[in-house]
């Protein structure tokens, strides 16, 4: 038996050996209200880390949505404005135009971005507002009890599609992120996920790029995170991740859809 095997935990758990700390910007004094295993928490962590690492904490403003992430302003310790449902990109436009020195991001669900806020989201991106739009797509209205969203998959069961979504009745899933690269105002459009450590690392890198674009005023960056709503889907968190990888990634494939920073 070597020295390492006999090492006591107290010898390992020391400040100088710490390789992963909880993000400073995530307020540890409040409990996040999300259901156990909800993707929103992971996305919050990554945003907190990116803002801190870029050193923009004191001049970053988030715009929180209506949806489960409505209380994001209680969790990530930067300035926030809470927008009416779907209006986050319009509010972010004002914030960034009135105080151009601010770094502004929206945090929107799929109900927020691809249903009630479609117009605001498309037009902010088309105008090339210098903002980051974080789009958490869990293919359902989580907050209100799991109703069908425009992003709901064909055949997916929700509270309002108990036998599964039907094209003839409910139309096709709206892949709104696919429209964004067509707009000249967008500089960066990517679709990622956070279901594995590797996916979360990748998403963090994408968020960093998006915030750097906002700082450099390159136009609108859209970071979609294909996510789970295990409560709305009525699955365990683990099963929800598996279901997402199997079904959602087919309709919402991961990867960059546009990156003008590469062309420069």
């Amino acid at each position, binding site marked *: 038996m070597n020295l390492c095997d006999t090492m006591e*935990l107290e010898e390992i758990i020391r400040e100088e050996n710490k390789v992963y700390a909880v993000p400073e910007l995530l307020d540890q004094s409040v409990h996040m209200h999300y259901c156990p295993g909800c993707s929103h928490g992971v996305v919050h962590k990554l945003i907190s880390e990116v803002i801190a690492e870029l050193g923009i904490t004191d001049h970053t403003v988030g715009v929180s949505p209506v949806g489960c992430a409505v209380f994001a302003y209680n969790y990530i310790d930067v300035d926030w404005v809470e927008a009416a449902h779907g209006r986050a990109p319009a509010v972010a436009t004002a914030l960034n135009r009135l105080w151009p020195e601010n770094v502004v991001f929206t945090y929107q669900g799929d109900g927020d971005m691809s249903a009630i806020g479609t117009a605001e989201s498309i037009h902010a991106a088309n105008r090339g507002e210098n903002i980051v739009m974080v789009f958490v797509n869990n293919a359902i209205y989580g907050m209100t009890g799991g109703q069908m969203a425009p992003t709901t998959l064909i055949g997916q069961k929700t509270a309002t599609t108990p036998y599964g979504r039907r094209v003839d009745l409910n139309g096709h899933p709206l892949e709104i992120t696919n429209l964004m690269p067509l707009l000249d105002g967008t500089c960066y459009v990517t679709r990622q996920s956070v279901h594995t450590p590797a996916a979360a690392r990748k998403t963090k890198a994408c968020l960093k790029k998006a915030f750097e674009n906002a700082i450099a005023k390159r136009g609108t960056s859209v970071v979609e995170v294909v996510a789970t709503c295990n409560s709305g889907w009525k699955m365990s968190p683990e099963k929800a991740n598996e279901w997402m990888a199997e079904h959602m990634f087919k309709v919402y494939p991961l990867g960059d859809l546009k990156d003008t920073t590469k062309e420069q």
Partner: protein
Amino acid sequence: MIKVRGAVTVNTDRCKGCNLCVVACPTGTLALQRSEVNDRGYHFAYMANPENCTGCCSCAWVCPDACIEVYRVKTEA
């Protein structure tokens, strides 16, 4: 030979027992408490096999509630 050992701390108060860290851990270090629960009634995660931990941080990356911190040491044996 260089040997790596890791350890994690779990904020048991914040933990919601979602099991995602247990699934993400490649070394079978973590488990959820079977009978013990926190103030909110959740079966929180803990190091069931602490000697397995390599400090790879996989568990911490996927934890939605930022409960986990990771420590790692390298020792020449």
